[in-house]
């Protein structure tokens, strides 16, 4: 019995891509996250929901290294990445998008995606100056991969457009393409559906499923419950910085506490 419990625990760890233990975060006197534990299995779509101010984006910021001042531990596969610089976490295989789109406005659409390749390209001054052939080959690789990612999200033909000329939905897709250009094992999508119309939402859903087929684990923060219910393998619910529920979509839908604090009486979300 003990052996089988240990085996279960080891299997769980082996299958886990991201674990968080006792994550707590304070902004001055305000506790944004309080002892949050979570485990994300490899290859799944793990969604985080909760009311505004629940700590969802804060959690993303801690996982991605955007904010390194917190208590607790984040483990990527079997490597603790707590307090690593964000560029190191990206190189280790975690890429993200932002709640409010943060594209590089002084770069074209294609160049924005190519920036995502930086972590695995490792460009060097001496190579750029003295080994023009190798440097040009590197550039062709980045450009080709960036075009592939743009086609993947449905933005082919827009390579040389300015970022400002894209509609919001297209900007969100561009951010996803840029994150995918980093060749992540784990993709963090922060409210990718916010502001999208129905057609754009369907397109987004297709991209999320396609990405799952590439065996890329996705953690998604989202308010659109219809989307969440359609795509999620596992859902975690936060409220005022604490985890109040975790489980499969149908379990979450029926959880009294979740209904009380977030879902309300409207259960037509399947």
């Amino acid at each position, binding site marked *: 019995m003990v052996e089988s419990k240990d085996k279960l625990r080891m299997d769980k760890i082996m299958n886990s891509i991201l674990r968080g233990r006792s994550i707590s975060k304070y902004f001055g006197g305000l506790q944004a996250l309080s002892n949050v534990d979570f485990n994300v299995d490899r290859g799944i779509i793990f969604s985080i929901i909760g009311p505004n101010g629940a700590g969802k984006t804060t959690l993303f910021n801690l996982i991605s290294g955007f904010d390194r001042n917190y208590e607790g531990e984040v483990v990527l596969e079997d490597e603790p990445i707590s307090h690593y610089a964000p*560029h190191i976490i990206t190189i280790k295989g975690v890429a993200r998008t932002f709640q409010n789109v943060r594209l590089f406005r*002084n770069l074209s659409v294609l160049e924005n995606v190519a920036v995502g390749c930086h*972590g695995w390209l490792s460009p060097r001054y001496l190579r750029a100056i003295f080994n023009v052939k190798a*440097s040009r080959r*590197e550039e062709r690789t980045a450009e080709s991969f960036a075009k592939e990612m743009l086609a993947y999200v449905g933005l082919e033909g827009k390579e040389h457009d300015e970022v400002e000329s894209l509609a919001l939905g297209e900007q969100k897709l561009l951010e996803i393409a840029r994150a995918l250009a980093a060749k992540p094992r784990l993709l963090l999508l922060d409210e990718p559906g916010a502001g999208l119309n129905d057609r754009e939402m369907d397109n987004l859903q297709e991209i999320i499923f396609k990405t799952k087929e590439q065996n890329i684990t996705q953690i998604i923060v989202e308010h659109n419950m219809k989307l969440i219910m359609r795509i999620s393998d596992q859902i975690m619910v936060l409220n005022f910085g604490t985890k109040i529920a975790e489980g499969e979509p149908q379990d979450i839908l029926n959880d009294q506490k979740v209904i009380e604090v977030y879902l309300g009486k409207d259960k037509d979300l399947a």
Partner: protein
Amino acid sequence: MGFPIAFPESYWITVLIYAGIYGLVVVGYDLLLGYCGQISLGHNGLFAIGAYASAIATTWFGWPSLLAIAGGIFITCAIALVVGIPTLRLRGYYLAIATMGFGFIVEAIIRTEYFGGSSGISDIPPLTILGYSFDTDRNYYYLVWTIVFLLVIVCLRIGETALGRSMKAVHTDEEAAACMGIDVSKTKIQAFVFSAALAALAGSLYAHYGAVISPSSFNIMLSVKLLLMLFLGGAGSIYGGLIGALILFALPEFLGQLERLELALEGLAFMLILIFLPSGLVGGLNKMLKLRGST
């Protein structure tokens, strides 16, 4: 390039030499500010270190020119690295003020008796490379502009690679850039050190051309003028700064009796450029060509 052949005795050769020397500083400065978005008001200090190091190495220690220039570049880059690591954590006007402080420190040091005081260093020998002495205006013109040409190509190469993209990303949004795998601190420091190398090389060329250097040539006004050259020509284009340097050096020659108003006119040019043509002459021209192409 044929100008000195056509007009061998022309005073304009001197003007163009100085435009090339300062243009070289601005080319490196463009990578730092135009691409990477890091403002430095201490490039007068870096220029001074390169000039004084090369001058001292040749006049006091009898070093050959190439070794003196290399030594000057090395010392300047080392100092830039030491200064850059703490100061490049700052942003915006804090960074500007901190680098200005560095410029003041260098100016104060070169004013001391150890470096010749207010008189500076004189009798700096002409540049001699592989036995060939660059002791005429004509051959110095070709030397300076060949170096400028090569380094513009190098900087354009850097700009069009992932390095250039990462600098531009850091310029727009440091935090998002970091989440794309870009080591923001390293990117900024590398740009600062690279621009310091170009400033040091320009300083060496300046010292060996004029044969005399003194602290008054390296004060804060030089950093302000470098900014003006960069924005006049167009930040972020690499060669825009050269155009700015050419205009700024040619301007006094056309002022005639208004020469005493040179500083005021430069200030006015600065204001007008930033208000009406913030992308500079090169940027403005590119926009105009794009608009014509789309109609």
